[in-house]
């Protein structure tokens, strides 16, 4: 597995071979450890009836650590747009199969299901000459990007995904800072929310689900250890197991909050965000 790839839900570490661990680190630098954390890769949905396009995008997205679901029909796409689907970006080809509705129609019929995901239309109709003006204008008014299928357009799609993630990181920062200050965290493990009309200020997942994500990542890690019941963690003169810590997190105790704070700190270091 090359550097930059990750398996969803599994911690991984930089591929670079270790430094000599007996050597002193550079003491002039503030310690910054760019540690990969067990983050789920960003999810995107691609609706395009062209199998070559789907295969190409699938390959390109996966290589960049993005988790794509590529489907050919609107019915398949609709089946994936369940409440809490978690897609960050949804790409929809304007011109779909003959037996299918158009991509822009699908977008407007299913805006609510798309939740807060960013929606972008992709089209092979160069220079938009064949596209009806009103359909084009309607997409523009709905703040749907239109990306032509020119050479190298997958790089453009990847750029769109990365811009969405960067924006979410910026919105995460106040939540991370409040956790670092030990302030009460937002409600943990919120129930899946019903789909709401998309608004530019409310992307799906972060930051509303950020604390829940941290909690889930840490719980998954703790509970998946080989010996989760072995009492090994010394705190307050008492020995805890990984499962004990998981219980504390789920109950929202001070000890659990302390662990979420440590996870938030790990995020800060990983994202290289100055506190």
């Amino acid at each position, binding site marked *: 597995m090359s550097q930059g790839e990750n398996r969803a839900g599994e911690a991984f570490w930089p591929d670079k071979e270790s430094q000599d*661990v007996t050597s*002193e680190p550079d003491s002039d630098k503030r310690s910054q*450890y760019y540690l990969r954390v067990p983050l789920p890769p960003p999810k995107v949905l691609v609706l395009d009836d062209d199998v070559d396009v789907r295969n190409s995008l699938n390959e390109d997205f996966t290589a960049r650590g993005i988790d794509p679901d590529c489907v050919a029909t609107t019915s398949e796409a609709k089946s994936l747009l369940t409440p809490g689907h978690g897609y960050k970006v949804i790409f929809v080809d304007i011109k779909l199969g003959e037996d299918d509705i158009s991509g822009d129609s699908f977008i407007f019929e299913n805006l609510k299901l798309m939740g807060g995901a960013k929606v972008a239309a992709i089209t092979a109709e160069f220079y938009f000459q064949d596209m009806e003006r009103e359909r084009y204008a309607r997409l523009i008014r709905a703040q749907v990007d239109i990306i032509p299928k020119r050479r190298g357009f997958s790089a453009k799609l990847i750029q769109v995904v990365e811009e969405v993630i960067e924006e979410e990181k910026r919105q995460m920062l106040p939540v991370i800072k409040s956790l670092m200050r030990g302030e009460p965290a937002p409600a943990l493990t919120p129930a899946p929310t019903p789909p709401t009309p998309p608004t530019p200020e409310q992307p799906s997942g972060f930051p509303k689900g950020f604390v829940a994500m941290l909690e889930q990542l840490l719980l998954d890690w703790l509970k998946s250890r080989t010996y989760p019941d072995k009492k090994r*963690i010394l705190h*307050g003169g008492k020995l805890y197991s990984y499962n004990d810590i998981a219980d504390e997190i789920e109950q929202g105790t001070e000890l659990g909050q302390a*662990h979420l*704070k440590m996870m938030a700190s790990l995020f800060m270091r990983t994202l290289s965000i100055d506190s």
Partner: protein
Amino acid sequence: MTQPIGFLKRLLSNLGIAAFDRAAIIIVPAYDPASQSSPAMRHVVNWLLRLRMPRGMARHFLVGQRVSRAEVEGALRATEGLKRVKVFLGHGTRAALLGPPQGNADDIVSKGVSYSVIYNAEMVGPNPSALFAYSCNSGKQLGSAFCGPPGRSFLGFEDETFLLLADEEEAECMRVWKDILQKMAGGIVNDGTILPKHEEMLRKLYDRHLAFFQKGKGRRNREDALYMDLILNSQRESLCRYPRPDDRRDGDPDPHAGARHRGAD
């Protein structure tokens, strides 16, 4: 006969050959039978019991479930007039170091568990003294209170601390704590005070061990690497030392001094 001996001891101490004018008090309470009997805790205690100390230094080891405020007060009385170094490994709050519950009205409850207060600001005296408190939160308040009188120094933490242990002393996580505890406690005991270089040394130790688990062979330790990263970084971030540079007064430890004693036992 005692006068020449006393003179000789003072002379040897002043020459840095021995440390008859100093004392080390090592405090490692056990809070319940389970933690006392745990092999991992026995290793930790042994690391501190086996610290190399300067020849002639008075030594008091307060270990296990019998550690109490009375015991600590007794050790302080026995070392009155000596320059003390105290090393504590246990549970703390912002204002106190805690020991096992005594079952009396003086016990306190911290996070739903009973403890006794074995050291707090009421017990701070004028003796030159250093306290290395490997415990939760004591840096928030006790640290600065401890350094109220001149000539005193503190190194501890301002947040919750955790140690990931193992029954095997050679486990990767155990080697980290052994390295940190022995180097830090040993260095402070030998120097007789806590200096900026000790804080710097501890931060470098954290950096080294973080690098081991993040980029070194320790990253293959799927069982422990992430958790070690979390707790090492947390300790590094919450580390605090008193007096702070702006707080120095006459009689405070000279940050450029470092009394080294040859002929350690």
